[in-house]
């Protein structure tokens, strides 16, 4: 079973996204900010990361840049999932190494579609 790390400072979003991702046959782990997520990735790299942008301690973009510098940090497929919906943010995320980008609000079809785009389902 593939593992997906959901990184978002909102417990509600983690719960909702977690349910959707579980329905796509992923094992789900959670982190509330980028620093926690990086710590978890150093212990075990997930197959996929669903990543919020604005979070306390370490934001999603800084986390992604740090992740891609880690050994095996290029492996996880990272899908941003954020309220930052303008072209500049999307471009910045892609340049930092994001594989896909979900603009909030999302639904199950969007997550499934985006996961399909990057070959996760």
């Amino acid at each position: 079973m593939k593992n997906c790390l959901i990184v978002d400072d909102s417990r509600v979003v983690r719960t909702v996204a977690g349910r959707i991702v579980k329905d796509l046959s992923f094992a789900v782990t959670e982190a509330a900010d980028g620093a926690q997520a990086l710590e978890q990735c150093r212990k075990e790299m997930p197959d996929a990361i669903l990543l919020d942008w604005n979070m306390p301690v370490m934001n999603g973009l800084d986390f992604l840049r740090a992740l891609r510098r880690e050994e095996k940090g290029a492996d996880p497929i990272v899908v941003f999932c954020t309220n930052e919906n303008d072209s500049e943010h999307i471009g910045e995320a892609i340049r930092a190494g994001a594989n896909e980008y979900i603009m909030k609000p999302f639904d199950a079809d969007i997550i499934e579609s985006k996961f399909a785009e990057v070959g996760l389902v």
Partner: protein
Amino acid sequence: MQESTFNELSDLALRLSGQHIAASKAYLLEARLSTISRRENLATLDDLVHCLKARPNPRFEQEVAAALSSKKTSFFCERALLEKIVTQALPERLSHSKTGRLRVWCAGASTGQEAWSLAIRLSEEMGSALARAEIEIVGTDLSTQCVETAKTGTYGHFDVQKGLSIHRLMTNFSRKDNGDWVIGDAFHRNVNFRRHNLLDSARDLGAFDIIICSNVLGGLAPAAQRLAIENMSAQLLPEALFFAAPDETIEGLSSAIKPSRALRGAFERDTTEKKTAAA
């Protein structure tokens, strides 16, 4: 909703657009007709049917029939089919074309995502022979409202995130101030949309190299399926190809088409019957 109301509406859909609405799908009617009911200030579908009968109006009946049809679609909905068309069917047609001009008809195009997806996919064929071809895409739908939406090439937050990768979205669309996304102007040159009922002759649309009618025929009654296929096949150029969605079974629905010898999964016009009749 009274049973007689369901019967009136399903009869209307069958008569005007060939749609078969099973009684088990009665629950869909309220949602599909909600916009019209609200606009006409009608509280229930029983009222709507009463209005249809009290003030017969062909235009209003057509609008109701169109509203009853399924609008479900998304970008790159039938990805494998689009790939087959772009990488096999269109190059094959182009190799026989003297003018370098090809025409594709997306029949039952709903709000246009399939037609725009094909245009986007074609724009990615930079190095291939297709890049030099002039390919016109015509999308048609029964619903005037759908056709108007399709023409604008403008889609909401949820629509653009289903089937479109972020790369394709950023490359081919721009974001409007209200949060909608609009397809690039360049695509409008070769893509156009028209209202058309598949039960009517399509002579006005002209002849086509490729006809795509995916996830449409399954919603029609058998007689309407036959008529729609006959009408569409009449617009196929010699050796041109007809496609339904890969999981749709259309073989045997009409003698107007037969499986293509050139491309597996495609159909071509069957002229056998006519030859026999002429003989």
